[in-house]
């Protein structure tokens, strides 16, 4: 898949079909990948595709001007389609290189499985359904399913829905919704004051770095409501009250646009389980309005549209 990508990317740049290639390169820390955005042919050799490509690159088309050749996984492609629905990106300005995705490795989970910091691993290879971790003098085999992100268990669209070039063969969906929603269901079973206490505790940790906002493809407002100072909705210092209100409003802003890529939670430096909020909204929007993010390119964004038959049993 990687070779195919390099070949296609090189061709696209050479033929001038795209101005930039947006893909994955190796990160500065071992086994982590970081976005690689380039217009130089010699950088193409650094492109990678491996089980660690976590970033959602559909963040970039709204920020980079020019034609892009962009590498997307299943969830990223839905973010991209959602941006098309909102008229934020133009389909003709992109050449989409689709990566059929078997799940992305959660570095934290992998560390727990091998019982060591993953920096100590020499090499990690995927062989069939297992991940072979070469350590100093030892070798560990970890089932791949045990180390992928929670979101990947519930992935209904592992193969990108929108692409120009598919870099591999299609992957069939692995639907284990229960496993993916386990955290949320457990949380829902606790009583209301307990739930409130939980979020209060979580958001007391928040340092308001806005990583969740900056990494989210659905957060495309030119001026975020937290940056508005007339009126100032949210104070700039981090009190848990303001942190929580900020995140709740952000959750509502991206509701119906969230493809459950899980980047908010992954990027959070203090480990707030943000996906529990976002994923909950994905479920609600699907249940209430039968809308799934980025599945249908021609569908209306969910909150710019309405039906006469929308649920209203809660309105008195």
């Amino acid at each position, binding site marked *: 898949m990687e070779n195919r990508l390099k070949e296609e990317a090189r061709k696209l740049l050479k033929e001038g079909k795209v101005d930039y290639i947006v893909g994955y390169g190796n990160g500065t820390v071992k086994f982590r990948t970081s976005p690689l955005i380039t217009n130089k042919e010699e950088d193409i050799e650094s492109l990678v595709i491996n089980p660690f490509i976590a970033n959602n690159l559909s963040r970039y088309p709204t920020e980079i001007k020019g034609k892009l050749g962009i590498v997307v996984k299943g969830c990223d492609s839905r973010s991209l389609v959602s941006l098309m629905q909102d008229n934020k990106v133009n389909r003709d300005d992109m050449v989409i290189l689709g990566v059929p995705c078997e799940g992305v490795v959660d570095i934290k989970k992998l560390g727990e499985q091998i019982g060591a910091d993953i920096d100590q691993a020499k090499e990690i290879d995927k062989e069939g359904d297992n991940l072979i971790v070469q350590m100093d003098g030892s070798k560990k085999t970890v089932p791949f399913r045990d180390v992928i992100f929670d979101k990947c268990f519930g992935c209904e669209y592992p193969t990108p829905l929108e692409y120009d070039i598919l870099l591999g063969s299609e992957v069939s969906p692995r639907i284990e919704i229960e496993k993916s929603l386990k955290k949320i269901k457990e949380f829902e079973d606790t009583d209301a004051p307990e739930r409130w206490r939980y*979020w209060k505790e979580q958001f007391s940790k928040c340092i308001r770095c806005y990583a969740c906002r900056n990494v989210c493809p659905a957060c495309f407002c030119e001026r975020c409501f937290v940056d508005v100072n007339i009126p100032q909705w949210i104070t700039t210092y981090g009190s848990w009250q303001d942190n929580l209100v900020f995140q*709740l409003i952000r959750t509502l802003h991206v*509701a119906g646009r969230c493809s459950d890529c899980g980047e908010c939670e992954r990027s959070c430096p203090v480990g707030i389980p943000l996906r529990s909020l976002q994923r909950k909204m994905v479920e609600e*929007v699907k249940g*209430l*309005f039968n809308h799934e993010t980025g599945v249908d390119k021609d569908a209306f964004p969910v909150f710019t549209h309405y039906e*006469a038959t929308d649920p209203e049993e*809660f*309105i*008195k």
Partner: protein
Amino acid sequence: MEETKWEPKVVGFLCHWCSYAGADLTGSARMEYPHNIRIIRVPCSGRIDPMFILRALQNGLDGVLVSGCHPGDCHYQSGNFHARRKFAVTRKLLEYVGIEPERVQFSWVAASEGPKMAQVVKEFVEGVRKVGPNRLFKDEIRDGE
């Protein structure tokens, strides 16, 4: 000092074209409804940002009532339809994070529905009274403070 009895303090966001006129009718028909509500007039229920609701709760109000025209009656054709979608998810999210559902209520009240307005406010205030004062956004008071 004699302890004063707690009374709920709630805000009502009423749309100018229906609910506000409805509340007006309630008054001019001399119907009584709880004085616990403070009414803010907005152009349309579609004007209500979920932010208003959260900020009201954050600033210590005990409840938020949002009221607009019946579906199909919107002065701006579709404002309340959009509002309806927005409120449906807002409600779910607030409940999910642990805010009592009684604190936030939505209703449709037309300009001619004076008695309904009184009824809605009465029921809403009673509901808020049951769940008690809003301490959600209060910091816990530490010993010695």
